[in-house]
């Protein structure tokens, strides 16, 4: 049912899924932010910082121009530039619950790696080491000659090793942690999207498919009844694959084809006695989905979780 491409994407998604246990003791799954997302967010933040510095310079220029060099404006500018450079990330991550402007645009957030409260100390630690982690190595890399003219060969080698180890650290651990994350005990995750699709088993929610002449939509009786023998064929995995098929965008050709293929397959597999005309296939699948879900959920209540069609009945 799934192509190699979607299988690959699924594997990547599984590899990046992390479960944290909230202080209430309930595990929540998050998806780790990839190195690309993080690098992108960082670059955006640097650009925003640069833009803010430019604005600061312009404002300071205006003020100093009118007040002379020995003015509070000049010193204010110096302090402001320092604060902006040092505390930009700290400020936003504290105020915006773990996001900075760049992270927000990309859709990622900082959380505590163990599912606790994100502490101010963690935010400080993870951001104050950035100087050594990113800027110092980059300066050495780009302008090593100016920083340390006539450096001996071994010093260059050492510097290069240092640069590589720190810059590439996120690629060499499974959680993509940079040194700052390790010190702060933090983790960067994707901001999940929240969409609640209608419940396929709730007859009331697909009332539009019922005849317009009224009736009682909430009690839309299933047209196709199923026996326990029919329902014992499949498990939870198959149920959710079926859910995926039913949830693909209706009225597309792909949807119609998938519905037809799956309906025929299920029909044959469960050895259904009644004939299902083509225009009723979707209805058949919906009824089967609802019945199967009711069946499996009931079993689950009695402590029997049937994962897929291969597990025992």
């Amino acid at each position, binding site marked *: 049912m799934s192509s190699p491409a979607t299988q690959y994407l699924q594997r990547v998604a599984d590899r990046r899924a992390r479960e944290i246990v909230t202080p209430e003791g309930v595990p929540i799954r998050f998806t780790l932010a990839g190195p690309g997302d993080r690098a992108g967010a960082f670059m955006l933040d640097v650009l925003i910082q640069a833009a803010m510095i430019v604005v600061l310079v312009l404002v300071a220029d205006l003020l100093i121009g009118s007040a002379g060099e020995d003015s509070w404006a000049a010193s204010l500018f110096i302090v402001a530039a320092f604060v902006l450079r040092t505390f930009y990330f700290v400020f936003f991550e504290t105020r915006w619950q773990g996001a900075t402007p760049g992270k927000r645009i990309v859709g990622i957030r900082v959380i505590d790696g163990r599912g606790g409260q994100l502490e101010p100390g963690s935010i400080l630690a993870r951001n104050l080491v950035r100087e050594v982690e990113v800027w110092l190595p980059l300066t050495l890399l780009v302008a090593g000659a100016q920083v340390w003219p006539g450096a001996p060969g071994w010093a260059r080698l050492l510097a290069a090793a240092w640069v590589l180890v720190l810059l590439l650290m996120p690629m060499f651990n499974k959680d993509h942690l940079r040194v700052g994350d390790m010190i702060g005990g933090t983790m960067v995750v994707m901001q999940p999207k929240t*969409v*609640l699709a209608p419940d396929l088993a709730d007859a009331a929610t697909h009332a539009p498919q019922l005849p317009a002449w009224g009736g009682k939509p909430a009690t839309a009786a299933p047209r196709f009844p199923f026996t326990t023998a029919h329902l014992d064929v499949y498990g939870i995995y198959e149920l959710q694959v079926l859910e995926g098929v039913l949830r693909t965008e209706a009225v597309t050709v792909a949807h119609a084809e998938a519905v037809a293929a799956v309906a025929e397959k299920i029909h044959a597999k469960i050895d259904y006695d009644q004939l299902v005309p083509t225009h009723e296939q979707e209805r058949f699948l919906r009824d089967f989905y609802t019945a199967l879900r009711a069946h499996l*959920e009931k079993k689950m209540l009695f402590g029997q979780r049937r994962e897929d069609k291969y597990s025992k009945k």
Partner: protein
Amino acid sequence: MVGTTAKQRPAPMPAGAGVSAERTLRSVEFRREREGTWRELEQLIALVRKDGIRDLTAEQLARLPHLYRATLSSLSVARSISLDRALTDYLESLCGRAYFCVYGARDPTRGVIAEYLTWRLPAAIRSIRWQLALAALFLVLGAMTAFFMVRHNSEAYYTFVQADYASGRTPASTTAELRAGLYDDTSVSAFLATFAAELFSHNARIGLLAFALGVVVIPTLLLMFTNGLILGAFAALYDSRGLSWDLWGWLLPHGVTELSAVVLCGAAGLVIGQSWIFPGARPRLDNLRERGRLAGLAALGAVLMFFVAGLIEGIFRQTVTNIELRYAVAVATAGFWIWYFGFCGRGRERLERRLAEGRR
């Protein structure tokens, strides 16, 4: 109608009888009942994202954790009774987003800042006193090395102090020039405020560098040592002209604060290095994250100290030339820091520790 059907006990299923979906599924009913709560939480989160958590009304703010916990419990229930993938996925991401709001960093309110200043910071510094001692030791060692070397051979001064940093204060200067520099620094006195700001920014950057380099320990110790070298070389130069008393009177009013801040940064860095190199009985990363937080808090304290030192250095030092007054200020600042780091917030610290033990 939903209610009545729900209360019916499911009849034992006759063999071959149709499993009818007429009876509403438990999971469907569950969703109908709780969906209102989830939607409310969703709206609240959207509001936080748009306007920030500060703009919530007191009522909304109180409602947020309540809705979050209710939704979290919905998630637990859904996992055990519902096989609707869309529903569990939705609840999972909704809880995730709500978790950001509830357990993301707390906004630094006035209370949090006051707490930090009155006991968290002093307590953090008290807990790293051995690292402080080590960092200070390297500073003093550096100072003594340079002092004795320069006293022995004044040419050594040039290896320790670079020309641009010395700004004319070299063994080649006359005693009168050196003395004038201590009391009437005309080159900078015109730009007091700007000068103070520059000093602050420069020193704080060096300090934070010392902090961050602590990850690998050695560079931080070296930085402490080289800072000591410069200090020692200056001391030797002025001592050779019999200006020791004047030099320290010029240096200490801000130097007490500034040098403490440098040592504090170094010590915070050493905490980080130590925590992963010698993790003790705990896993390295666990130890690192716990000590890292502490180090972060201490480093912020050091930045504040650099700011204070910059103010004293830029404004006070250039305007007060009375040496007794200079020493008085030095003693006063030293006394203040000793009180602050040694004693401030002790009672609260003890109380919090006892509370933490009680929770355990």
